């Protein structure tokens, strides 16, 4: 018998083969557009309503480089995550829609692993890869930005040791944030997945309508606002998964701060903040989230069993 890890890795490879074009477009087009805009266009950023703008040539090269690298990573991650959340409901039904489900069902793979592989690939692996690609692409982008607005020599004289440590720390912190945010949001994501699998295109409307009706009836008729509170708590925790920091966390962010000192303190802050995000897992809310997700996963497996 093929061991489950081999089957899972093969099913993940199937996801890559099927979706690589879309994935590559999502992760490469934004950095490329950014690069073209920087090289050929005019960039002006309004920072408030008083017509104040950032004059790039007056910004320190280090700040420009850091903003470009991290901005590239975060932007690519957000795009990938948004694309994933938009298209994820279709993933569970695609084999039924293209009628290849009978082919996949004729192979000796378990239903659970067959459901797990696309969820893992789309909800976690692709956004994580996008983050990594965005962070890596940010390095040559930063070269273009610094060379354009400050000077090429300034890019080579950046404090690369400090920058590399911050790069690694922020990449890992964002990666952890993504995993934890997905965990916190998993009840909603899996509810939409299960509803889409069973109710086809009516799945998302049914979930939205169902939650709205149940939550409003419970709150307004019976005086129980728990559904809305649960939703707010889930989104709050998902946000804190990325930045769980609180005052006095060790990094002086803000205008006038020394960029190099700020950068140097970033790894320690990222580590401490990751600890806080992990600590936030220790609450009953997580158990509730996991229980809802597990129930929805079981519904997905049952749907696949029925072909």
């Amino acid at each position, binding site marked *: 018998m093929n061991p489950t890890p081999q089957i899972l890795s*093969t099913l993940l*490879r199937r996801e890559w*083969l099927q979706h690589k074009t879309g994935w590559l477009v999502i992760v490469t087009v934004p950095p490329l557009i950014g690069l073209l805009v920087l090289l050929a266009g005019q960039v002006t950023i309004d920072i408030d309503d008083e017509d104040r703008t950032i004059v790039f040539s007056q910004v320190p090269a280090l700040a420009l480089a850091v903003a470009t690298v991290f901005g590239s990573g975060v932007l690519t991650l957000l795009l990938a995550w948004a694309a994933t959340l938009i298209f994820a409901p279709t993933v569970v039904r695609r084999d039924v829609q293209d009628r290849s489900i009978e*082919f996949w069902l*004729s192979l*000796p793979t378990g239903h659970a692993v067959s459901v797990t592989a696309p969820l893992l690939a789309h909800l976690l692996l692709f956004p994580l890869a996008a983050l990594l690609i965005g962070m890596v692409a940010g390095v040559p982008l930063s070269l273009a930005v610094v060379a354009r607005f400050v000077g090429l020599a300034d890019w080579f004289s950046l404090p690369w040791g400090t920058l590399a440590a911050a790069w690694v720390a922020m990449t890992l912190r964002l990666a952890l944030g993504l995993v934890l945010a997905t965990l916190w949001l998993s009840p909603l994501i899996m509810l939409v997945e299960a509803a889409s699998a069973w109710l086809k295109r009516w799945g998302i409307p049914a979930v939205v309508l169902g939650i709205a009706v149940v939550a409003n009836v419970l709150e307004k008729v019976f005086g129980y606002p728990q559904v809305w509170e649960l939703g707010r708590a889930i989104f709050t925790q998902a946000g804190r998964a990325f930045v769980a920091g609180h005052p006095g966390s060790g990094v002086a962010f803000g205008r006038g701060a020394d960029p190099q000192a700020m950068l140097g303190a970033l790894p320690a802050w990222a580590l401490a903040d990751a600890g806080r995000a992990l600590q936030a897992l220790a609450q009953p809310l997580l158990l509730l989230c996991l229980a809802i997700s597990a129930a929805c996963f079981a519904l997905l497996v049952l749907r696949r069993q029925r072909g």
Partner: protein
Amino acid sequence: MSDHLVEARNLTLRYGAKVAVDDISFHIPKGRVVGLLGHNGAGKTTLMKALVGLLRQRGGSLQVMGLQPQAQRVQLLQSVCYIPDVAILPRWARVGELISLMSGLHPRFSAERARALLRRTSVDLNARVKTLSKGMVVQAHLALVAAIDAKLMILDEPTLGLDVLSRKAFYEMLIDEWCDGERSVLISTHQVEEIESLLSDVMMLNEGRLALAISLEDIDKRFVALGHDPAVAEEMAAAHPLLRYRVQGGSAALFDGEPPPSVAALGRRLRPSLVDLFVALTRAPEAHRTQF
């Protein structure tokens, strides 16, 4: 484990509230090529899905390769391969990619053998499935499935919608490359005449019930067709044949067992065709109605 690859006893299958297969018993030994015949909706696809663990039995017992299909589906599918009636390979994939994926997903799949089988066809390994004709897709699917070292192949109307050349190529590959006297095939099709020469056994389903399960050898022993002149049609009808039908140059009557001697003397023995037998046994409740 018995010598039978498939053993069903009083098997009942449902689709929702509808009974699709009703209390049937049969077995499939090693090395047989079994044709599963039935009208649309007779329960063929339901039965085949149950055999590969895609449908839960609602009564009786079913064992395939000594395993319970639904409970032991993953283990079972290592020894049983299946081409469903909607034989659709994923359209986005290249044929070579499917070989690579099946290598990782099926422990008894031989990529080398699949490539060798595909070389016999006009299917290019780099071609995407969506660029192939229907006949080529079915050929590719059979090549992939025939590269599995399995004991039983289940084919649910695999040549549906194919032209005659594609059908011929499909059956040639099936017989040449897969059937070795040890392995068995269960195949359902409406093109009965085309596969009659390939079959060793036949099962006929009629509205969920098993109308007949018999070897082709035993058909010749059990059923008798008598060709006769129209002038003796009345006498033939009076002997209550299963079916009366036209043959070239006259009429014929099909009997289950030896016809009465008085009637046998009025006609000449013919070999009953599978199609005539199928019509005779699945036209209930008007079993004695003529086909004229």
